[in-house]
């Protein structure tokens, strides 16, 4: 104790709860509360605004990518320079017969005779439509039919937005003649990368993403969960486990391109795994995702009340029974949250995949995890780099596909998480 205080100083005045000072304090407290609420609301509105802007600009720019402009062209098969017996297309050797025909020349000729010099505005891949029409119904070989052939990228751009003057003029002519139409471009959903924007599709990259994510999930989820369980439930607390903990926390913050270099050095150069493959991409992304799952998993396991562990131990459950019957089920929702975050990040990752060669031009969808593949974000990156104006809306369309992929992946995960969530 210091010097004794006089008894007068110790005697306190009764608090004036109704005074002006107190009233002012209350008013300022309410004001700060209101201010805080408004700032929070503004933050929400701002982020919602950004999101809305993103969605609107993506949809307005990208939805066009799912459609294509078509030109009606009359193809007079009996006069065409081809000789096919329609009967031969119904048997075994149909494919061979079809591939022996020069469809390109036939299509060009038909377009020129029907449209004059505007016949040059059909897409380079338009002959595929002619071939498929014949394949679907060989009887048309004896007739003259009108086929809707895809327009070239330049004309497509002119039809949808601002194109080059020549293309705009041609489109105006064709539209006036009532030959143009808009149709859903199913090829965009079923084919892969290509050189001509009218022919490219997203399926190859989509399947590549699917396979890569499958590899990532199958590796990082069990390894991450088991690592988290071991570190929380079994590992002794000592300098080694401290070091491992710090390393894992740091690993979660390492820039993703470093993981790409690691994948390049280890999986390709040392283990000689196939280049550009979903397997290697998945392995690399699993390295990146695992620390996120470990950290989220450890927090979820820590949050399981110790009383549940006591209860299980108290009736003679072995440590492994405690973990798998009680701790893991209760921690699973938290672990799944971490997994969603990690997988969403992995799905959008581009940089590390560039390092392991997944930026290659892949014109056919991968058949398995060891085939050359690319993934959606890399495909978006590649298309955004293209010169041709037709790729602009393809890029936006690919972004829409990527976002839908992400949304459906997260929805499944959230559904599963809610299913496992226990009510207390």
């Amino acid at each position, binding site marked *: 104790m210091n010097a004794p205080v006089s008894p007068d100083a110790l005697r306190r005045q009764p608090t004036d709860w109704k005074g002006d000072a107190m009233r002012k304090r209350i008013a300022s407290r309410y004001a700060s509360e209101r201010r805080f609420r408004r700032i929070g609301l503004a933050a929400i509105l701002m982020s919602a605004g950004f999101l809305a802007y993103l969605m609107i600009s993506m949809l307005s720019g990208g939805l066009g990518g799912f459609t294509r402009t078509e030109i009606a062209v009359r193809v007079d098969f009996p006069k065409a320079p081809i000789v096919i017996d329609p009967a031969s297309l119904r048997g075994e050797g149909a494919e061979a017969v079809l591939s022996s025909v020069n469809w390109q020349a036939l299509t060009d000729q038909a377009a020129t005779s029907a449209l004059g010099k505007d016949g040059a505005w059909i897409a380079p891949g338009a002959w595929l439509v002619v071939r498929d029409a014949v394949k679907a119904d060989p009887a048309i070989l004896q007739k003259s039919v009108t086929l809707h052939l895809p327009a070239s990228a330049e004309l497509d751009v002119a039809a949808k937005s601002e194109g080059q003057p020549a293309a705009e003029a041609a489109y105006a002519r064709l539209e006036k003649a009532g030959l143009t139409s808009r149709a859903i471009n199913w090829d965009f959903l079923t084919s892969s990368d290509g050189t001509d924007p009218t022919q490219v599709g997203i399926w190859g990259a989509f399947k590549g993403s699917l396979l890569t994510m499958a590899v990532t999930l199958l590796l990082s989820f069990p390894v991450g969960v088991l690592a988290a369980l071991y570190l929380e439930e079994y590992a*002794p*607390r000592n300098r080694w486990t401290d070091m491992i903990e710090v390393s894992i926390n740091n690993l979660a913050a390492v820039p993703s391109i470093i993981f790409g270099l690691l994948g390049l050095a280890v999986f390709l150069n040392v283990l000689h795994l196939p280049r550009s493959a979903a397997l290697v991409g998945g392995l690399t992304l699993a390295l990146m995702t695992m620390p996120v799952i470990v950290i989220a998993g450890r927090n979820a396991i820590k949050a399981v*009340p110790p*009383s*549940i*562990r*006591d*209860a*299980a*131990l*108290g*009736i*003679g*459950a*072995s440590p492994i*029974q405690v973990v798998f*019957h*009680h701790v893991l089920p*209760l921690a699973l929702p938290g672990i799944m949250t971490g997994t969603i975050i990690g997988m969403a990040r992995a799905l959008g990752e581009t940089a590390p995949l560039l390092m392991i060669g997944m930026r290659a031009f892949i014109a056919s969808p991968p058949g398995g995890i060891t085939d050359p593949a690319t993934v959606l974000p890399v495909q978006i990156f590649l298309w955004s780099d293209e010169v041709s104006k037709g790729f602009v809306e393809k890029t936006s369309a690919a972004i829409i596909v990527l976002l839908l992929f992400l949304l459906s992946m997260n929805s499944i995960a959230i559904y599963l998480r809610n299913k496992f969530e*226990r*009510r*207390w």
Partner: protein
Amino acid sequence: MSQPTPPKMSARNVNVYYGEKQAIQNVSIDVDTDNVTAFIGPSGCGKSTFLRTLNRMNDTVASARVEGEITLDGENIYSSGMDVVQLRARVGMVFQKPNPFPKSIYDNIAYGPRIHGLASAKADLDVIVESSLRRAGLWDEVKDRLKDSGTALSGGQQQRLCIGRAIAVEPEVILMDEPCSALDPIATAKIEELIHELRGRYAIVIVTHNMQQAARVSQRTAFFHLGTLVEYGSTSEIFTNPREDRTKDYITGRYG
């Protein structure tokens, strides 16, 4: 005088340390099936710590170290030959805070028998669940909602569920660590009644803060103070005619 039955559990010269700190000093005590044994003492006196050495729950605390000998039916429970998992099934435990599993009432009771393989068929398990809930005095309240979550019950019901869960594996000893401290007086009365009914079938050790409760439910009482066992004897003697001054001061409310 008739030959006394050998004690179910006995502790000899037990010391417990948490790191450097000694929590229990040289405690020797016998527990038998015919009597309910109460551990009383002020907070921090080590009664709960000592209780937890009896089924080796202190093993889960990394810094805890136990010296001395504790036997169950003459077998040292800290010997290397003793299986901890089996020990904890034979020496069940009920905790201070009711801690049912977040599973159905049925699964709460059935969990122990399942993991120890006590029932092979569903019908056997049904019998175990019903008899355990009956003995825990809970059957009539929950028989129509066995599928409901155990955590949806009231606090007192939860605690009886936990007792039912402990007796479902047919233990030999039941340790209760302040089982009523989180309950209201009516729920407490029900638990005390239950303890009376379970006496004789299981050796029961109960830690309590409440001296009236110790006087009501137990036949033998041990008074702990500062990590030592001050006095151990029949409950009536401890409460009416304690030998030690410290015991007398505590039970008359001088400190605690």
